[in-house]
């Protein structure tokens, strides 16, 4: 960068800085200093007064203009209070007070607008990642068009380092995409053909061709922005009260000041009351906390519906979790192969089971076939004949032999003597105990082995339960439609002690309602299909992995963009911090006003001091809210996710969580 260029950028920056925010306070402050200098050094009181009045006029004119504008539309606001107080001070000859009040008000305003913008920064960042242009393939040519004008079905090109311009599906190419703007996850995700990508994410390498499924307002990013804005505007119950309060507060203060002035015949007292009663800190105390808290959440991929839901979330003391798809990955995988016949190895058993299941539509067939493929076992062709036995398993004819894969009842029926031997029953019982679904494999009635599948527990599930307890959730309950032994096995792995198994959707709803009758504030986490009634009944319905679902973003009380269980305790923690922050702010505001009123009535608080303290309280409230924008306390992450001595199954899952 050349010297002249950096100088000119600096010049522009300085000019903008002065032109915008600080011009009025700077000039006005200089006049005040000059007035002091003239009066001290030269003793020229006339000049000193003139400079003070100039300072007051410079800082006060914008305030008076604003107050006049407000009055033309019949709004009585804080500007009017300050205008009347400053004008009054000039009229009665208190030039220093007039200058000080307007100067401090101007400084306070400049600081307020600078810092308040910061509390909105999370949303501003989201809007900033919205893509502007897209490179579309039209008739084989690359055409650059505004991102919002891309049609559904068109293919856009995403080069390394550019933003993904639309929501869509990768149809060719591969690459890494930073999805932090959507999910809060900063590690880039690998994208290959068939994967979904989102507008506003950034390609960090590779080259993708994406078929558009949504552009402009019909993208996940646009939905998130809308949700965040609506959430920030949705008023918390506490805030609705404050709004009603501030509507009559300002006029009431004017009346009070007039009455006080008439009764005491003390104009200074009346004017001072006007200044100190400015409601600034009070009216912004709640919005700043909510805007900062909800913005912070959005940045981390946690969308909270609004102030009311923040307040409710902060009270959550019971969490109900669906098992399948929430605590577990939601797709069964092969866990065990036990060979039970001399001469048969585990590969032989698995290969035979896979061949028998090759023609099956059953959900438990897929994990067996996948595992066989992963181990490189040949599964040639389809069985000559396949006969599913409802609720028991499958019987297939392979090379003229009858192969049965299924539960004990199915295999027993395959044998003339119905006797399977103790070892088979024992193996099946052991596997079932461990929460797996065992399937016995038999050839012409002779058992050769047992295979078992299970839905694997998510690696972070146990840590989530621990962190929920740490943020103050007293009851963690598993609600599942699955059978008791499987549910118990998963519950013991993740540290949940309350299990309700074999539940129909209505029974899940009833379980949530039961917790509520016991006085709990219940959050329910589910996949939103069979859990819908329970989600709607719970005080807070939580949707996970919502990035892929527009409906979830719009309807869930808390939408966690990423499929990451640890976001749940993080969201509860954030809600608690935000509500605590709100309370601190209300306290700061009320204590300040009370102290100032007492100060004025008892004497000692002048107009200038009143304005100074008032502006400080406003800034204190804003700065306090800004604390929410910092990343969550490291305390939440201090405990390592894995402790030595945990059960081996869990540990091995952590070691290879994505081995398919």
């Amino acid at each position, binding site marked *: 960068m050349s010297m002249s260029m950096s100088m000119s950028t600096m010049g522009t920056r300085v000019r903008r800085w002065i032109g915008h925010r600080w011009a009025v306070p700077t000039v006005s402050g200089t006049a005040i200093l000059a007035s002091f200098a003239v009066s001290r050094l030269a003793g020229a009181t006339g000049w000193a007064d003139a400079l003070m009045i100039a300072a007051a006029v410079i800082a006060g004119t914008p305030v008076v203009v*604003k107050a006049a*504008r*407000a009055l033309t*539309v*019949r*709004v009585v*606001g*804080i*500007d009017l209070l300050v205008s009347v107080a400053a004008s009054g001070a000039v009229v009665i000859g208190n030039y220093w007070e007039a200058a000080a009040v307007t100067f401090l008000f101007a400084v306070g*305003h400049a600081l*307020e*607008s600078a810092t*308040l*913008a910061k509390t*909105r920064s999370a*949303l501003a960042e989201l*809007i900033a990642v*919205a893509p502007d242009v897209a490179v579309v393939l039209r008739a084989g040519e690359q055409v650059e068009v505004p991102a*919002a004008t891309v049609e559904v079905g068109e293919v856009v090109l995403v080069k390394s380092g550019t933003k993904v311009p639309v929501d869509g599906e990768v149809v060719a190419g591969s690459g890494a995409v930073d999805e932090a703007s959507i999910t809060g996850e900063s590690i880039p995700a690998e994208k290959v053909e068939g994967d979904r990508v989102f507008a506003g994410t950034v390609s960090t390498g590779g080259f993708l061709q994406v078929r558009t499924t949504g552009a*402009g*307002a019909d993208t996940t990013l*646009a939905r998130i*922005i*809308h949700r*965040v*804005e*609506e959430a*920030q*505007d949705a008023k918390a119950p506490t805030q609705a009260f404050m*709004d009603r309060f*501030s509507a009559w507060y*300002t006029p009431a203060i004017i009346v009070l000041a007039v009455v006080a002035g008439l009764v005491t015949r003390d104009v200074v007292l009346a004017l001072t009351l006007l200044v100190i009663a400015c409601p*600034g800190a009070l*009216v*912004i105390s709640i*919005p700043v906390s*909510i*805007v900062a808290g909800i913005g912070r959440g959005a940045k981390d991929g946690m969308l909270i519906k609004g102030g009311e839901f923040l307040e409710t979330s902060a009270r959550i003391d019971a969490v109900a979790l669906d098992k399948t798809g929430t605590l577990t990955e939601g797709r069964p995988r092969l866990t065990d192969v036990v060979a039970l016949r001399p001469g048969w190895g585990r590969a032989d058993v698995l290969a035979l089971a896979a061949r028998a299941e090759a023609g099956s539509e059953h959900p438990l067939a897929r994990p067996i076939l996948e595992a066989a493929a992963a181990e490189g076992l040949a599964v040639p062709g389809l069985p000559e004949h396949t006969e599913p036995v409802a609720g028991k398993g499958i019987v297939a004819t392979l090379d003229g032999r009858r192969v049965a894969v299924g539960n004990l009842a199915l295999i027993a029926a395959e044998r003339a003597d119905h006797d399977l031997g103790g070892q088979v029953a024992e193996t099946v019982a052991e596997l079932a105990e461990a929460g797996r679904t065992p399937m016995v494999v038999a050839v012409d009635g002779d058992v050769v082995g047992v295979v078992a599948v299970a839905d694997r527990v998510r690696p972070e599930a146990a840590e989530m339960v621990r962190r929920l307890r740490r943020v103050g959730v007293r009851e963690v309950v598993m609600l599942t439609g699955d059978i008791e032994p499987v549910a118990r096995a998963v519950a013991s792995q993740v540290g949940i002690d309350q299990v309700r198994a074999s539940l129909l959707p209505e029974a899940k709803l009833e379980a949530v309602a039961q917790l509520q009758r016991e006085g709990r504030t219940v959050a329910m986490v589910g996949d939103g299909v069979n859990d819908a009634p329970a989600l709607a009944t719970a005080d807070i319905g939580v949707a996970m992995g919502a990035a892929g679902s527009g409906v979830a973003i719009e309807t869930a009380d808390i939408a966690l963009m990423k499929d990451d269980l640890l976001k749940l305790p993080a969201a509860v923690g954030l809600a608690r911090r935000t509500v605590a922050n709100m309370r601190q702010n209300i306290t700061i505001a009320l204590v300040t006003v009370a102290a100032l009123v007492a100060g004025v009535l008892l004497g000692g608080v002048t107009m200038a001091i009143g304005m100074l303290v008032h502006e400080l309280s406003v800034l204190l409230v804003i700065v306090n809210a800004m604390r929410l924008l910092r990343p969550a306390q490291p305390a939440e992450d201090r405990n390592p996710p894995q402790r030595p001595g945990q059960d081996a199954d869990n540990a091995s899952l952590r070691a290879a969580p994505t081995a398919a």
Partner: protein
Amino acid sequence: MNTTTALTTTVLRAEGFSCPSCVAKIEKRVGRLPGVDSVTVHFASARIEVRHDAALSDVDALIDAVAKAGYVARPAAF
């Protein structure tokens, strides 16, 4: 509902909202423009939502009215 005029909704994002009561000014200023059906000012997210007849008051007219109330606003893409 109204078949003679076509109302559109325009969302403006504004800067420098620093006190909730000041935003009432915007509501009233913009609301007085011809063809404006309703104005909602959201303080927390600094948004102004206007339902208006673009033939009578276009987006620039809305931005001018907001400027007269003392705030800078620009139209939002979505």
